[in-house]
């Protein structure tokens, strides 16, 4: 009998013990982390007076929390920035904590925390230029105005435009989606063309070359994803300085000349039999690595997928993307995607966060060299393009000066107003293209439907 009582008491104790146990550990953690204190001792004694004067616990080390996605790209880049800053500012007394999340997760968390009143937010957050407008509109005043803090004339103008709203610039521009045409030179040569022939094309010329290459080699000329062809659409559209939205943020789809031409070009590619429709992003990478397609249009970060096929080293080349012949505004340069760093207005270490961004992202060309070499991250800081890194030859691309090519393309990219709802617009365009491919509608009807769908979704 007594033993049984004891057993029960044990159970109760176990329950209480676990409860109390976790309570203790968890409560202690959010305040200070052990590693930080260690780092604190290493990084010197006093905090910098100017930045920390108004903070209640000046003198103590402060943590700048950053949310970003992709461990091998954005996260790695920000960790490098933290190292550079720690070395060049040994007495800044800050610790940079980069939290790695998926892109979608960053948005879900940010949305919840902003809607929930602002606690649990990071100090710096990475946002895509395509979506940031949505957050700036929905949560006005949540992001710090950086207009006076940086010399934005040193950054690419189309990037600065993308993070500027009502004359205020809210972010430090980071990576760009400078668009290039990556192609297999060996296959192109088999069809009797040279590297020279692939420069500064129009899409009409590209289709002609594509027909010959596909005919002679049996390999289809260009790859896009079957249920989302918007990479090509967006590349073509911005090459004309047009977008889903006009300068004032109004939907601009049904009367958008660039979209009409883009639809026409993609349909013609399909009809000519040179368009390989991959079933997914994995299928696209697989097709490129297997040699089942000749070329792809995409951003610098896409190169790492191409490089995976080590046996194809030396066979690849990159060129400027084709332009739309019938539109005079179209140039051989465009952009797909890209992202920038935002500082949260309510951050307790807002000044330190801004000082950190100033210290590394403005003026430090060595840093830009390092991230270009290690992560292939193409920054938006113009003086960064003048360094030796951009003269380096890339073996995988047959000794081509790949970085130099991007540095050449970037200043040409025409600024557009991304409007903040690119994902929604992409959905509408994808549906319209699918209807068009099935032959149900004409191009004009397809675009009208897309405009109606988007307007409906955005409640305009």
């Amino acid at each position, binding site marked *: 009998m007594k033993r*049984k009582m004891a057993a*029960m008491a044990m*159970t109760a104790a176990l*329950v209480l013990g*676990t*409860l109390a146990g*976790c*309570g203790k*550990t*968890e*409560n202690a*953690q*959010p305040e200070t*982390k052990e590693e930080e204190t260690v780092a604190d001792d290493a990084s010197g004694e006093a905090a910098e007076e100017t930045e920390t004067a108004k903070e209640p616990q000046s003198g103590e080390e402060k943590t700048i*929390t950053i949310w970003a*996605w*992709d*461990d*091998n*790209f954005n996260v790695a880049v920000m960790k490098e920035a933290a190292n550079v800053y720690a070395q060049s500012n040994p007495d800044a007394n800050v610790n940079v*904590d980069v*939290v*790695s*999340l*998926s*892109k*979608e*997760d960053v948005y*879900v*968390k940010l949305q*919840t*925390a902003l*809607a*929930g*009143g602002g*606690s*649990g937010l*990071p100090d710096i957050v990475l946002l895509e230029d395509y979506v940031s407008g949505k957050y700036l509109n929905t949560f006005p005043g949540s992001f710090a105005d950086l207009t006076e803090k940086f010399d934005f004339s040193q950054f690419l103008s189309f990037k600065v435009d993308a993070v500027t709203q009502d004359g205020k610039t809210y972010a430090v521009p980071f990576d760009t989606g400078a668009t290039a045409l990556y192609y297999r030179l060996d296959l192109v040569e088999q069809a009797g063309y040279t590297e020279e022939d692939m420069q500064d094309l129009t899409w009409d010329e590209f289709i002609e070359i594509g027909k010959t290459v596909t005919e002679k080699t049996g390999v289809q000329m260009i790859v896009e994803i079957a249920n989302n062809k918007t990479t090509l659409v967006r590349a073509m559209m911005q090459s004309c300085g047009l977008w889903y939205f006009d300068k004032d943020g109004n939907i601009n789809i049904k009367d958008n000349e660039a979209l009409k031409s883009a639809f026409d070009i993609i349909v013609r590619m399909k009809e000519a039999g040179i368009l390989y429709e991959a079933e997914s*992003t*994995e*299928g696209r*990478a*697989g097709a490129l*690595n*297997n040699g089942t397609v000749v070329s792809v249009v995409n951003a610098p*970060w*896409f190169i*790492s*997928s191409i490089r*995976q*096929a080590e046996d194809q080293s030396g066979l690849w080349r990159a060129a400027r993307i084709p332009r739309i012949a019938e539109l005079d505004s179209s140039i051989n340069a465009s952009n797909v995607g890209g992202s920038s760093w935002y500082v949260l207005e309510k951050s307790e270490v807002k000044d330190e966060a801004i000082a950190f961004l100033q210290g590394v992202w403005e003026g430090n060309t060595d840093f830009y060299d390092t991230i270009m070499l290690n992560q292939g991250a193409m920054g938006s800081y113009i003086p960064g393009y003048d360094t030796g890194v951009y003269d380096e030859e890339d073996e995988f691309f047959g000794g081509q000066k790949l970085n130099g090519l991007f540095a050449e393309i970037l200043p040409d990219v025409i600024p557009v107003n991304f409007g903040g709802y690119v994902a929604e617009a992409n959905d509408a365009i994808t549906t319209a293209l699918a209807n068009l491919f099935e032959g149900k509608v004409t191009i004009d009807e397809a675009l009208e439907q897309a405009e109606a769908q988007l307007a409906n979704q955005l409640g305009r």
Partner: protein
Amino acid sequence: MVKEKIMRTAKRVILHLFLLAAVLISIFPFYWMLSGATNSSVNITGGAMWFGSNLKENWSNLQGTANVFLIFWNTIKTTLIYTFLAILICAMAGYGFEKYRSKGKNVVYAMFLLSMMIPFSAQMIPLFKMASKANMLDSHVAIILPTIAMPFLVFFFRQSFQSYPTELIEAARVDGANEFRIFFQLVMRPMKSTFAAAAIYAFMKQWNNYLWPLIVIQSNEKKTFTLLLSSLSSAYYVDYGQLMLAIVLATLPIIIVFLTMQKQFVEGIVGTSK
């Protein structure tokens, strides 16, 4: 006679062929997951089906990306504590609703069940506010606490306790046993399979929990496995070998739990408690 025998054998052959096909279909994703964990990303996107030699490299890549052991420990810890507490609380609640008499009991119970109809996305922001006011952001307590009284489990336990004879409880009371003793010794033991089924359910639910930990966890050191998988899969260049290996690690515990408790699980769900 002979004809009948042939007919029967033929039926069985067809049945087994059909079942074999069903087994292959359900086993294949697991096989592909395992083979993928040993292949390089290029081979996977290229459609490799057989085992490769990249397991070691995938493992070191995964280790380089995140502290896998810590994340694994975080997930195990939160899941086990959660499972234990959720079962204890829900079983007691279900027992109370079923065996005790009180006014308004059924109204409370109905309201409690109704709360199942509120989707989690609608509770997210208020819950987040509560967690932040209670200073619980970025802690494992915050992952465990909010769903510890799970309406479904309370309902499940109440239904199961219906089959437990009330006379036994009354007899024990007459003999002088107190209520806790009745519950822990008299009621809990014969209902083992019910508890096992609930344990699997709670374990899976917490192990796969994604949205809430995502919102409430702030630092890399507190992450759970679902968050790691999510961040691995959204890189500009997704390393599928690494991702597949992480998925294998994330799936193993559930397979182990399910296989070891399968018998009880089925019994508990069917409701044949002995």
